[in-house]
């Protein structure tokens, strides 16, 4: 065979009967797992219908009635004529919607409810026509039939199955000529989905985070964000009035955050790829509600995937600390670049060169946020901990001056002093100016005190100062303390190590030592952590008890 003939190719032929019904299971069962994401698909279709209706004088609005075991979704778009409804519902994976001008473009969102409800019914009445029409999918019986055939090793072509289990009203039904709506009725929703829907506050919050709605008016910065979104790219921002059981749905942001910062992602030529905003927690803390943490990705006001998508795509970078710092933020990033395409289920971005560039650019831009959060965190920690360190040094100084320091407490006091001094040094550059002076004095005082504690005894003098005697007795070496401190351990951890070392000296067996460690861990847990004052107080008491016991056996 000549080489040209060998390499010649032609198209593979597909007939209708070659596309099997198992695809329905894939579409219905595999693409949408949570009910709020299924509702998002219908909201998206409604959003497209409403925003495309230029002549409407009404405010675009979606009404959702949750009435177990059913959910009804209405939009006040123009509605569809019988022909339009049939054309829209009888095509799967085919959409006339141009990408960019609308939110949906895959033509499969309408099937999203098939996994959720026994019957999905779409009723529509077009403005100006005195009728309504209905298309319904008997999803429950369809999926059951597919499963039964699968068990017998059989399969129908997808078109045969869809035809068999879908219905269209024969006669148009009477409706007011002014009526205009499309209603999606999800009937007899499966119990599994109801569990999520019945947790109503969480469900509405999740829905508010993915639907094209306005910011919660109770959120302090809602007007600022609305203004920002409308100013930067109004063609990307189409919030609708959405009501669930009569209650307005909003982006459910919480307060207690700093003023929003704009973010804009530009490509190498300076073209906008995305824009948005973030708010940082007003203190150096994570946003308390896990649902709100991080930066959500949006297109035309509708969420892409879940809020974890930015992290999954790598927009937060890869270092663990960077990932954690994004929990300090809540915000939105609207993708405006028309070359960035979404996956069919709208759960992610389709990997192409443009998306890869977007991820790189976004990571660079967002890195500024994690750096800012890190700095903010260090400043916040410094301003919280420095006064405690200063106080520690002052207390020690006072005890030394007044002679109120017992000999047994000297070793632990030295450790505490070193720790406080070094902590102050470490945090000095993050301290507020007004604290720096006190911190400097405290460090100097700490140095002086330490010199007093570790003054080496003259060799010819057999007797040591009582303080140094005690220090030697417990074999506390200041260099050890400083070395440990460089490992940046907390005071309480340091105490814990000491207590454990004393337990060794008391002759605890390995088993007893193990149990003792567990006891220390348990104390840390009930104290609320190893860096708490409570834990430190417990350790101090244990230390006193151990020292007493140690002295008995000496």
């Amino acid at each position, binding site marked *: 065979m000549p080489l040209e003939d060998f390499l010649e190719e032609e198209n593979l032929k597909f007939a209708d009967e070659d596309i099997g019904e198992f695809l329905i299971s894939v579409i219905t069962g595999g693409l949408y797992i949570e009910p709020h994401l299924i509702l998002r698909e219908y909201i998206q279709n409604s959003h497209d219908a409403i925003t495309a209706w230029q002549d409407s004088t009404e405010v675009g609005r979606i009404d959702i009635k949750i009435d177990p075991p059913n959910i009804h979704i209405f939009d006040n778009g123009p509605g569809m004529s019988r022909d339009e409804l049939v054309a829209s519902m009888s095509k799967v994976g085919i959409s006339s919607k141009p990408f960019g001008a609308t939110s949906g473009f895959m033509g499969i969102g309408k099937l999203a409810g098939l996994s959720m409800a026994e019957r999905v019914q779409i009723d529509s009445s077009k403005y100006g026509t005195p009728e309504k029409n209905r298309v319904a999918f008997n999803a429950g019986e369809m999926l059951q039939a597919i499963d039964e055939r699968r068990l017998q090793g059989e399969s129908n072509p997808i078109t045969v199955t869809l035809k068999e289990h879908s219905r269209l009203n024969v006669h148009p039904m*009477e*409706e007011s000529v002014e009526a205009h*709506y499309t209603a999606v009725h999800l009937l007899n929703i499966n119990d599994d989905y109801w569990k999520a829907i019945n947790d109503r506050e969480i469900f509405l919050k999740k829905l508010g985070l993915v639907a094209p709605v306005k910011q919660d008016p109770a959120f302090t910065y809602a007007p600022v964000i609305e203004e920002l979104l409308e100013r930067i790219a109004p063609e990307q921002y189409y919030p609708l009035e959405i009501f669930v059981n*009569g209650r307005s749905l909003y982006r459910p942001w919480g307060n207690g955050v700093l003023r929003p910062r704009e973010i804009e992602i530009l490509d190498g030529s300076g073209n906008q790829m995305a824009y948005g905003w973030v708010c940082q927690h007003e203190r150096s803390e994570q946003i308390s509600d896990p649902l709100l943490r991080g930066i959500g990705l949006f297109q035309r006001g509708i969420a892409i995937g879940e809020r974890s998508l930015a992290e999954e795509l790598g927009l937060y970078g890869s270092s663990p600390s960077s990932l954690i710092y994004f929990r300090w933020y809540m915000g939105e990033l609207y993708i405006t670049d028309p070359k960035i395409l979404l996956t069919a289920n709208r759960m992610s971005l389709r990997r192409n060169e443009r998306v890869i560039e977007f991820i790189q650019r976004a990571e660079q831009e967002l890195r500024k946020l994690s750096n800012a959060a890190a700095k903010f965190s260090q400043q916040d920690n410094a301003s919280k901990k420095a006064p405690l360190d200063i106080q520690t040094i002052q207390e020690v100084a006072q005890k030394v001056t007044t002679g109120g320091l017992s000999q047994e407490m000297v070793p632990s006091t030295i450790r505490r002093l070193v720790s406080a001094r070094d902590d102050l040094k470490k945090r000095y550059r993050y301290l507020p100016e007004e604290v720096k002076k006190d911190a400097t004095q405290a460090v100097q005082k700490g140095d002086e005190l330490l010199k007093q504690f570790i003054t080496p005894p003259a060799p010819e003098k057999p007797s040591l100062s009582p303080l140094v005697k005690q220090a030697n007795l417990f074999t506390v070496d200041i260099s050890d303390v400083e070395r440990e401190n460089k490992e940046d351990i907390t005071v309480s951890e340091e105490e814990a190590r000491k207590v454990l070392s004393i337990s060794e000296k008391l002759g605890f067996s390995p088993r007893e030592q193990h149990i003792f460690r567990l006891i220390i861990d348990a104390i840390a847990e009930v104290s609320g952590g190893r860096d708490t004052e409570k834990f430190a107080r417990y350790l101090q008491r244990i230390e006193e008890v151990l020292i007493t016991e140690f002295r008995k056996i000496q």
Partner: protein
Amino acid sequence: MASPFSSFEKSLIRESCLQEVAALRSRVNRPLTYLGLPSPWMGDITAWRPHLGRVLAVEMEERFIPDLVDRAYTLNLLYQLFYYVGDIDQILQNGFDKYGHTLQDQFPIDLVNLDYCSGLIYEGFERISALESLFRRQAMSLSNRNLKVPYFLLFITHSCHPKAGKQRISKEYIKYLVKDIDFYQDNLRETIENMANWYISDNCPLEYRHKAFVFGKVLQFAQNTGFQVSIENAIAYKGDNTTPMIHYEFEIYPHSLGYPIPADSRIKIQDILDWPVVDVSGSDIASSDRPRLSTI
């Protein structure tokens, strides 16, 4: 496709009810709570819409629920609509529907429209028991919650087609009604006997017998639960496919709710029998030889 349950005469009746609905709305000075069988076409609700608040709609056929909700949406009642799926008689007796939605929480009701398209008296008499349950639920909710309402409206409509239900019962009921007339004074006893004889004769239209039965039962249930009854109307009309139908209107007044002694009623047996059944134009549907109190 034209809406069923909307014959010309039916619309006239809805218009006539509108006045009573509006009067109650004005009296209580708030939108009314409605319980009924509106069907997906919601003809009654459409007519009374301005006066309605919560709409408790019972629908037997699950497949009609989307249409019911569609109609509520176009009437701007979406969130005021609470639908119950199943047989209203069972729902009234059991207190919950097929989905387990409880009805009692929604009581007291201001306006009950039991707009049956079939008859009233069937084997098992569930429809009658349901009526009794309605009175009990109203009384329970008003007395438990110590609510003051002036009265509630009860509209009942059913078919008078000879094949709709057990006609024999309504005839037997007439005999039951007059069983104690030996204690009445002579002239009154004679009048009631004449009336009763007419009711069980072939001259009596079925509508009259049904009227006596329904009036009697409503009166009985009301008395037992502490209500007094004011009869407003009994109208015979032609429904879809010219089916003979009858429609009743009552005002039910709380009187001695929760009290162990039945409420005394101002309506006597002779009133029940004498009350005319009229057509939509207001004319008595019985022939002129019907014995009447005023003719005695």
